[in-house]
C-alpha cells in the first residue's frame, strides 16, 4: 500500500485516538469522525487492483449524458474512462469502494447516535467533561 497514504491514515488514526482520550466529550465525537475518515481512506486505498481507471465499464459512450457528473468529469478530471471492456487490472478496485460506501453509512449512523447521547449527557450531567462520567464504578 502506498506509503504516504498509509502515513496519512495512521496519522489520522493517532490523532483520532488522542482525541478519543480527550476529556471533552465533543472532542471524542470529533475523534470518531476523524477515525472514521481514516478507516475509509484506508479501505479505499488498500484496494488490490491499483488500476488507472474508474471502475465503470463504458461500452457505448454518449447514449445520454448527465449535466454535472457526466462522462467529462469522470473521464477528464479524475480519471479516464476507457471504451470497451478491458482487463480487470486496469480499474481501481471496485470492491473496496463498495465496502466504503457501507462503512460511511454505518459510521454516519453511529455518529448520529453518539451525538444524541452526548447532547443528553450534557443535559443530565451538566458538563461535557468525560471524567465526570464515573458515577458507576467498582
Amino acid at each position: 500500500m502506498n506509503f504516504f497514504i498509509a502515513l496519512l491514515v495512521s496519522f489520522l488514526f493517532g490523532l483520532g485516538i488522542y482525541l478519543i482520550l480527550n476529556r471533552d466529550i465533543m472532542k471524542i465525537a470529533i475523534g470518531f469522525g476523524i477515525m472514521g475518515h481514516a478507516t475509509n481512506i484506508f479501505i479505499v486505498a488498500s484496494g488490490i487492483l491499483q488500476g488507472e481507471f474508474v471502475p465503470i465499464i463504458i461500452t457505448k459512450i454518449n447514449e445520454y449524458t448527465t449535466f454535472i457528473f457526466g462522462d467529462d468529469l469522470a473521464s477528464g478530471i479524475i480519471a479516464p474512462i476507457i471504451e470497451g471492456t478491458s482487463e480487470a487490472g486496469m480499474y481501481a478496485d471496485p470492491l473496496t469502494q463498495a465496502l466504503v460506501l457501507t462503512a460511511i453509512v454505518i459510521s454516519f449512523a453511529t455518529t448520529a447516535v453518539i451525538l444524541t447521547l452526548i447532547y443528553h449527557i450534557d443535559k443530565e450531567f451538566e458538563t461535557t467533561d468525560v471524567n465526570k462520567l464515573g458515577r458507576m464504578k467498582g
Partner: protein
Amino acid sequence: MLLALLYDRSFDSVDPFIILAFIIFLPFAAAFVLPIIGSKMKEKIGWFATLISFICFLAVLYLIPNVSREENLSGIIPWINELGINFSLRADGLSILLAAIVSFIGIMIMFYSNGYMSPKDDLNRYYQYLLVFMGSMLGIAFSDNLILLFLFWELTSISSFLLIGYYRDTEKSIYGARKALLITAGGGLFMLLGFIAIGLVTGTYEISQIVSNPEIILNLKSSPDFAGILILILIGAFAKSAQGIFYIWLPNAMEAPTPVSAFLHSATMVKAGIFLIARFHPVFSGTDLWFYLVSGTGMITMIFAGYIAIRQTDLKAILAYSTISQLAYLVTMYGFTTEILPTIGVSAATFHLLNHSTFKACLFLIVGIVAHELGTRDIREMGGLAKKMPITFIIAIIAAASMAGIPPFNGYLSKELFYESSIIMGQQIGGIWSAIIPMTALAGGVLTFMYSLRLIHKVFLGKPANEEMYSKAHEPGAIMLIPPIILAALIVLIGLFPDLFIEYLVQPAINSIAPGSEKLHVQLWHGFTRPFIMTVFTIAIGLFFYMKYDEIAESQNRFCSNYKWFSLNNLYDKAVNNARSESAKISGSIQRGPPTGYIIWMLVFTIFLILIPLSGFYFSGGNLFDPSIMRLPASEYFLLAIIVITAIGAAIAPKYIVAIMSLSAMGYLVALLYAYLKAPDLAMTQVCVETLSTILFLAVIMKLRKKEAVNPDPRSDQITKLLIGFISGFSFLLVIMATGIVEPFVPFSEYFIENAIELTGGRNIVNVIVVDFRGYDTIGEITVLSLAALCVYNIIRAKGMKKEKKKESKEEEESTNITDNITDIVPEEI
C-alpha cells in the same frame, strides 16, 4: 411377623436395581407431590412423610438378606457418555448399613416432628426438605458412580442449607446456613476435582470397578497424582463430616429445628464423609499418607472437640461438639491399618457408626423434648427434671451411658473395640507411639465420659435453677416419647444381643470394605483384657476430672475471651465479612468509572497484541518497509497536507464551532481524495454525508450548555495520551503498510469486473456490487440506518427512575453490608 414377611421372598423376581431406584426416588417423588397432599392433610402431613420413610425402610430391610448372602445387587443405566456419568446403583453391606440408618432414623424423626413442630410452621416446606434430604442420602448410599454420588452429595448440602435456614428470619440461622453451605458444598467442589482425577487415572467412575480391581488400585497408588487426589477427596469428606479445620460449621448448624439436627447433623448427613472414607478405604488405605492424614486429623479433632464441648452451656452445642468428637473416632479408626487383625479398625468403626447413630439421635430427641418443655436450651437454667419427667430421664441415662461407653449398652462395645484397635495400631508403629495412640484414645474416652455425665447431672439431677420453668415442665406427649423409647430400646438390644445386628448389618458392611475379613466377635464380658482396663480407667479418670469440671470450663472461657483472634471461626468470619469490602476495593481499582481509562486499556491491549506477531516477524529478519510503494503524484501531496492540517485544526480548536468546521472541511477534502483515488461514487456520497453530519454536529452543539471544550488535562496526562495515540497510530501504520496482495491469489474484484455486465446488466461496478453482488450487505446497511433512527428516537424518550439523588447517596453511606451485621452474632465458641 415382620421378619416372616421379609423372608417370604415372593418378590424375588423383581430386579434389585428397580428396588434401589425405587428407594431413592420415592422420597423425591413424595417431596414433589407433598404440597398437593399437604393442602388436604393440613397439619397431619407429617404422617405422610413418616409413611414414606417407613416404606423406604421396609425396602431396605427387604434387601438385607440378599446382601448378607453377598449377592451382587447392582444395575446400570448409561446417562452421559461424555462425562462418564452412569445412573448406576449398587447395594453392598456398607450402603445397606447407611441406608438402614438413614431410613430408620428418618422414621423416628418424621414421627417425632409431628409432635415437635407446631402446626403454625410451614410444614409442607419442612417435610419437603426432609424428604429431599432423605432421598439424596439414600442416593449417596446406593450410587455406584462417583459423579452420581457427588450429585446426591451436593443435594444433601443444599437441603441441609435450607433446613438450617428453616427459621429464615433469624440472623443466627442465616449465618449457620451460609456457613454450612459454603464449607460443605465448597469442600464438595474439591472432592469433585479429586473424583475427576480418579476418573482420568483409572478410566472409570464406577466405584465397584475401582474398588474391586487390584490392578487399578495399584495403578492409582503409583500415580504421581496420588497425594493430590487423596487430599482433594479428603477435603470433601472432612468438610462434610466436620473434621479438622472444617468442624466450624457444625455447631452453628444447630440453629435448625432439633429433629433436623438429630437427623442431619448427628445421625446421617455428617456420616456421609465417613461413608466416603470407608468407601475409599480399599483404594487408599495401607499408605502412610492415608494414616497420617486420616487418623492424624481424627485424633486431633477428637481431643479438641471433646475438650471444647466441656465449656458449652447450650445443650445442642454440647451434643454438636460431641458429634464432632465421635465422628473423629470413626475417622481415626478408618485410618488405622494394622498387620495383626488387619480389619480391626474397620470393624470397630463400622460398628460404632451404627451405635453412634442410635445413641446420638436419641440424645438429640431428648434435648428436643427438654427444650420444648422448658423453652430454653441453656444448661444453667435446668436441673432436677428427673422428678418431672421420669421416662425422659431413663431414656437419657441409657443414651448418655451408651455414649460414655458404660456397659451394658452398645456404645461400650464399640468403644472397647476402639481401644483395642488403638493399642494394636500403637504397637505396630512402635516407639513412643505405642503409648501415645492408646493414650489419645483414652483421653477421648475420658472427655466423652465427662460431658455425658454432665448432661445427666445438670439437666435431670440437682436442684432446679429456674423455678418458673421447672413448674411448667411435664412429660411430653406420646408422639414425642415413642421415638426416643424405640431408640433407647435399640441401644439396649444392640448392647445385649450384638450378634444379630452384626450378622445382618455390620458384618456385610465390613466385608464390603475389606473383603474376606474375619468375623467380628463382640461380647459384653471378655475377661480382664486391656480394653476393659482402659474402660475402668476412663471412668475413674473421668470421675476425677468431673470434680474440676467448672474450673476447666472457666479456664477455657478465660482463654477464649483473652485470645479472641485465636479461632477458626474468627478466621472464617473475617474472610466472609471482609470478602465484600476487600473485593470492592480491588474491583473499584479496576473499574474506575470514567471511560477514558477503559479506552486506554483497550488500546494498550490492542498494541500489545499487534506487537506479538510484529516482533516475531521483525526478529526473524522480515523487511517492514517496501520502498517501491513510495510514489504519489505531486498534486496529492498537497491534498494530503491540507487534510492533515484540517484534522489538526479539528483536534486543537477549543471552540466547538471551529473544530466542527475544520472537521467538515476535512470531510470535503477527503471526498476530493476519493476522487483522486478513482472513486466518484464515494466522492459524491462523502460530500452529501459530510454536509448532513455537519448539520447534525451543529444542531447538537447549539444545544449544549457551553460552546467550548473543557480545560484540557494536566500536561503529564496529555503527554501520556499523545504517546498512546502516537504508538497506536504507529502500530496501525505498520499493519497498514504491510497490507498488500500475496502473489498467487486472484482478488474477488476481478470476478466482479468481468461478470458485471453479463450478470447484472450494470456498468458501474461499484454500484452493481452495492445493490446486487453484495446487496445483502446493503440491506444490512439500511437496517443500520433505520436502527440509528430508532435509537435516536429511543434515546430522546428515555426515562429513568425518578431522582432521589441526595437522599439515596446518604442512605448508601449509612447502610452497612449485610455481612457486617453478622459480626454481632458470631458465636463465642472457638
